[in-house]
Structure formats: structure tokens, C-alpha cells
């Protein structure tokens, strides 16, 4: 008779673990990588793979040398951060700039807070914000020069440069229908991963099926930006219609993959809704009133900082709690 193991109930559990979740997120980003490679060429693939590998190795280096808790080694979260950051840079970005961004993401935004699960701000977005102020020329996609491209700028930078007059953009692009189709498929300028709504939605659907997404965040995020853009459009049509605003820039990448980062988002559906509404409205406000053409990253980072507060107030209702 072998010795019996004494352990606490429950004695069975889900087969899920942290690594499986991280691998799922990586799988969810594959469509975006594929479209980036088609639209921007092989360098996009190179930067994506480099980001994922460098992220995981750097994460392991930090955990292996500095962290007390070695169980975190090779959990996949470093790869997710690295790939997300790669998808957030423009094609002209040199490989070493990407690596600097990843180092910042992991060594400043993630591990000083306690590592996996402890960081307040989304590491990939922190890395992006760092690169945006350090290497602005690589970050907005302005250096994107595809030989047959209508414009070297992204639709949003074009809009910001032209006094927020969307009719000029439509004119330059060759028609409203073509603009929207290109935005949906990803045939526009921008950072590597943000351009194709279609690819992002495919990957996102996979994550929803695998139950890896706090679904309330993208729903409230996208609808809020849509609603704000609708109001803006009704007041001043040249600001761009709501559909344009949710299809362009980093909104889909941000709402579907960055704002939904488990670690840096609220725990209850109500909190997630507040988070999404905050990020969605800030995105539009920064786009229209801010000095940057795009506001997704900063909106999410601002809301990341508010998560502890949101969690404090957006509590679930305890069974049997009496109304007071």
C-alpha cells in the first residue's frame, strides 16, 4: 500500500494553466502577424518572431537572475509582451529599437512591480509609450513607404495633419468604399499589427471561444468610441464617422488585445465595463483634441492606473445581500 496523499479539496481542477493561456494569446495574434507579413513584407514577420523570442528570453533572464520565485520561468507571458510590442511598432523600426522597448516593458513596467500578475500597467503598452517618446519617427507608421501606397501616413495621422477633415482623406484615398475596405482588410499604413480589423477579429474570436477574454472590455470600449464618434460626427461631419473611427488606428488591436490583458484590467463585469467606457471615450478625446493623432495606448494606460480603484467599487453582489 503506497502512502496516501493528503491535499485540500477540491481534488480535481481545470487543465488550464498560465502557460496554456499565454500560448492561446499568441495563437490569437497569428492572423495579425500573417496580414502584417502580407501587407508589409517579410520584415514584419521577422520583427514579430524577434519580439516574441526576445520577450520570453529577457523575461526568463530577469526571473532566473533576480526573482525569488523561479516557478514563473518560461510561462509565456514574456513572449506575449514581446509580440504585442512588435505589433505596435512601425515597419521602419530597427530590430534593436524593438529590443530596447521590450527591455523597458519587462525591466521597468513589469518586474519591479513583482513580476507576473503584479504589474499595474500593461508592459507592452508601457514599452510602446517609452518608444513613442524616445523614437517617435518609428512609432506612428509615418515612415511606412509602400511603393504603391496612396499616402505615406496612416489615415489618422493624415487626418490630424489636415485639420481633421475626413473628406480630404477620402478624396486622397480614392473613395469612401475603398478606404473602409482597406481599413477592414488592413491594406493601410500603421503599426504592424493594428491595420487589419479582419485579422484581429479572427484571432479575437479564437480567444473568445477559448474563454480567455474579459468580453465586457472590448464590447464597452468599441461601443463607447463608436458613440463618441457618432456624437462628434453629428456635430461636425468632417471629424469622421463612427465606422471610420473604430476601424482605423490601433483601436481594434487595443480594444481586443491590449485592454483585455488579464493582469491590468478589472475583475468584475461591471468594472470591465467602466474600464472600457473610460478607455473608449479617452481614445476619441485624444484623437480629436490631443496633440497625438492616436490615443489608444494612452487611454488604456490611464485606465490601467485606475484599475485598483475600479475594483474597489465595482464589486460583485454577494448572494443574499440585502438592499440598503
Amino acid at each position, binding site marked *: 500500500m503506497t502512502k496516501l496523499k493528503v491535499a485540500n*479539496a477540491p*481534488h480535481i*481542477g481545470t487543465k488550464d494553466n498560465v502557460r496554456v493561456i499565454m500560448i492561446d494569446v499568441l495563437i490569437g495574434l497569428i492572423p495579425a502577424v500573417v496580414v502584417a507579413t502580407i501587407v508589409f513584407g517579410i520584415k514584419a514577420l521577422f520583427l514579430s518572431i524577434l519580439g516574441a523570442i526576445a520577450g520570453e528570453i529577457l523575461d526568463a533572464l530577469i526571473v532566473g537572475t533576480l526573482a525569488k520565485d523561479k516557478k514563473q520561468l518560461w510561462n509565456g507571458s514574456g513572449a506575449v509582451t514581446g509580440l504585442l510590442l512588435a505589433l505596435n511598432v512601425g515597419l521602419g523600426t530597427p530590430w534593436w529599437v524593438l529590443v530596447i522597448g521590450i527591455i523597458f516593458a519587462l525591466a521597468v513596467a513589469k518586474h519591479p512591480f513583482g513580476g507576473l500578475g503584479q504589474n499595474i500597467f500593461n508592459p507592452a503598452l508601457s514599452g510602446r509609450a517609452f518608444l513613442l517618446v524616445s523614437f517617435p519617427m518609428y512609432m506612428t507608421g509615418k515612415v511606412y513607404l509602400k511603393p504603391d501606397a496612396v499616402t505615406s501616413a496612416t489615415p489618422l495621422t493624415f487626418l490630424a495633419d489636415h485639420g481633421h477633415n475626413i473628406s480630404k482623406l477620402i478624396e486622397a484615398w480614392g473613395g469612401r468604399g475603398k478606404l473602409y475596405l482597406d481599413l477592414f482588410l488592413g491594406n493601410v499604413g500603421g503599426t504592424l499589427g493594428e491595420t487589419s480589423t479582419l485579422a484581429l477579429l479572427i484571432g479575437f474570436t479564437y480567444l473568445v471561444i477559448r474563454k480567455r477574454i474579459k468580453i465586457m472590455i472590448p464590447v464597452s470600449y468599441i461601443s463607447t468610441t463608436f458613440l463618441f464618434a457618432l456624437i462628434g460626427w453629428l456635430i461636425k461631419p468632417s471629424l469622421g464617422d463612427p465606422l471610420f473611427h473604430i476601424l482605423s488606428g490601433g483601436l481594434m488591436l487595443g480594444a481586443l488585445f491590449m485592454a483585455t490583458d488579464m493582469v491590468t*484590467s478589472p475583475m*468584475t463585469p461591471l468594472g470591465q465595463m467602466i474600464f472600457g467606457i473610460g478607455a473608449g471615450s479617452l481614445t476619441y478625446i485624444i484623437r480629436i483634441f490631443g496633440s497625438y493623432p492616436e490615443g489608444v495606448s494612452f487611454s488604456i494606460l490611464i485606465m490601467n492606473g485606475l484599475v485598483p480603484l475600479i475594483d474597489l467599487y465595482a464589486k460583485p453582489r*454577494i448572494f443574499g445581500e440585502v438592499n440598503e
Partner: protein
Amino acid sequence: MVLGTFKGGIHPPVKKELAKDKPIERLEIPDTVYVYMVNHAGAPAKVVVEKDQEVKTGQVIGEPGGFISAFVHSPVTGRVMDIKKMYHPIAGRPVDTVVIQKTAEDDWELLEGHGDYQNMDKKQLLDLIKRAGIVGMGGAMFPTHVKLNPPPEKKIDILIINGAECEPYLTIDYRTMLERAEDLLKGIKIMEKILDVEKVYVGVEDNKPGAIKHLREVFSSENVQIVPLRTKYPQGSEKHLIYAITGRKVPRGGLPMDVGVVVQNVGTVVAIKEAVVDGKPLVERGLTVTGEAVENPGNFIVRIGTPAKFVLDHVGLKDNVERVLFGGPMMGIALRDINIPVMKGTSGITALPAEITRTAVEMPCIRCASCVSVCPMGLQPYLLVKLVQKKRHDDAAKIGLMDCIECGSCAYSCPSKIDHVRYIKLGKTVYKALRGAKK
């Protein structure tokens, strides 16, 4: 049809197929039984027999040690060999245990005054149930005569029979509903006389259509409604069962009687019938012996005090066994010693190999929020764990530490393998001790 249910919960593999088609068999009586004086919630019973005393089956060997306590009877006819302290897996400490060697076939000492319940009044019925030592057989082991006798200001209008059996692997309630529906009905009638309720429901998860159909046939002419419930763990939790069937919510910190409901487990109802009609005290119970580490899973009637090893030897324990549980895999207690005896609340013995069980290499919380979304009590298990770890028990209590029903849904679904239930149980113990010290 919309099935009754509740918010949250999980869908673990049910694994009922291992034992659900095995009719209940009567297991032979072991030569020696070990009967705890803690076979119920509340105060331990006081031993009233002496070493070397001859006892009959059903003879009282322990008397209640307080208001919430229960009688304990000899499960065999034989001689008291020893009265000693033995480790108790729920109490977590050694408790008084009467060791009885079987010397003869059963010579029953039946309960005085048993018989036709229709001619008895409430007081007589409650007295019989009390003297029979009946406790909640779903696992909580709360003395039934106390539960059936709420204070007069609590008007009870609904009786619910808990046949949900949401715990994976276990099938004894299902078999009991199939094989002993008539006894179940008599037990219900006895309780109707005691409680004077307006309505009786039997809640059964819809993955047991056989039981639902059979009970509907047997109970067709009665004022008893069989309610199919959505198969979801923990559907059999008292509060969630009440909510699913009646829409009433037991208030925080309250009891079912606060919303006019009494809930009894299927096994308890049959025990009530056996006590009142047949005069048999609670000295045996049905249980499921199951799990992937068992050769021939099945459902058995076993005497209280039978060592788990005796039961497992009968069904055959495989070499790959990693842990043996009293109860099912969600809420069961892992035995550290296979000789620990069956109690009145032991609804099953589940033996699991390592490939089935949860491996608990704890990773940091990644705030996936699955614990929050599955918690049937609307708690924030991740936060309770953090607060208990930081010894902030008062803050934990404010956000529902004491509301936790320890169903384990959070720990089951946690990708970081955090043992929420362990921390919460610990936190409850410390919080109670601290609160007691303050007073």
C-alpha cells in the same frame, strides 16, 4: 422549459457513469468497527458504555453532549473492546472512539415507540428522530431533530428534498431515489407532519432523468413536486437549491429557515423513515465507492464505523491510487490513513490516481477573474486569499469571508492553481478565534 439554477458555478466532469448503474448492495459487516463520538456537527457525544460491555445492534453507546449534538448507537452486536482517542479527519484531531468487536449476528435493539407514524404527533416523531441519532447525511452531519424543530417564530412553509447530487462521481442519492422511492415518500410524509408545510419539492439535476421519471411515477398522486434542475456544480448547495426552486434567497449569515424552508438530503429522509417506522437507529448508510483507482465501483450499504480499508478491499483498490477521499472530488476530505472509519456523513469513498487529481504548484494570480465569475456566492475569492495572506481578517470578513460555502469552484477553475479554499478555511478559523478573543 427553463430549468432552475443560480449564477456562477462550474461544470466539472461528472463521472457518474462509473457507479450509476450499480444497484445498492449490502456490504458484509466487518469484525471490528470504530465509532467516533463525533459523528455529527456540534458537541461531541458522551460515551455511555464501558470496556468489555456487551452491546446489541442499535444500542446507545453515546449520548448528546449538548443541544446541538446527537445520539450514537452500536452498529454491531458484540463487545466493546476499547474506548480510545482516534484521529478524526473532519475535526482534525483525535476524538473519543468506541471500538466494538462483532461477536454475533445482528440482535437489534429497536427504538421504543416506533411504528405507524400517522398516529403520532410532532413531539413523538421528533423524539424518535432524536433518539435515532439522525444527522444530515449529505455531509454536513447537522442533527436532524434540531433542523426539523425551528424556533416558533420561524414559520416553515416549504420542504425541499435535496436529490441534486451535484458532487461529481457520487451516485448514492441517485440509486436511493431509484430503489427506495417508497421509503422516501414515507419519510417525506413524516416530515410533513412535523413541519406542517404547504409544499414539498424534490430537486434533482437534469442529468438524472431516470430518477426524475421514477419519482414522478411513484409520487404521482402526492402533493410532491419533482423539480429538474440544471446540471451545474454546486447545485446541491442548500442556498442555491432553495434559490433555484423557490426564488428565495437566504440572507447573508442566515439559515434556510429564515426564508421559511427546510432542506433534507435524500439519504436523511430514508433514515427518518427507517427510524420512525422500523425503529432502526442510524447505524448504517448508503454510500458510493468509486473513482478511477477502484476496480469495481458500486453503491453499498455500510455500517457506521466500518474502516475505509474494509470497504476498499471489497471493491479492489488499484495500485495507482494517489489519494482516498471521504466524499467526492470537489468537497471530499483526503484521508491520511486508510483505516479511518465511515461516518454518518460519508456519502462516498472516492479513490483517485495522480493523473486525475489537481496538481497544486501555485503560480502568481494573473487576474483572469475566473474565480470571481464562477463563485456562486458572488464573492471575490482572489481578494479573500490576498487578505488572508496579509492577515487582514476583518477586511476579509467585510467582503464575505464567512459567506464562503467552500464549494471549491474557484480553486477548480484557477489556472494559477491557487488553493483558495485552503486560505479561506484558514482565514475563517483565525477570524473566529480573533473575534472570540475580542469579546
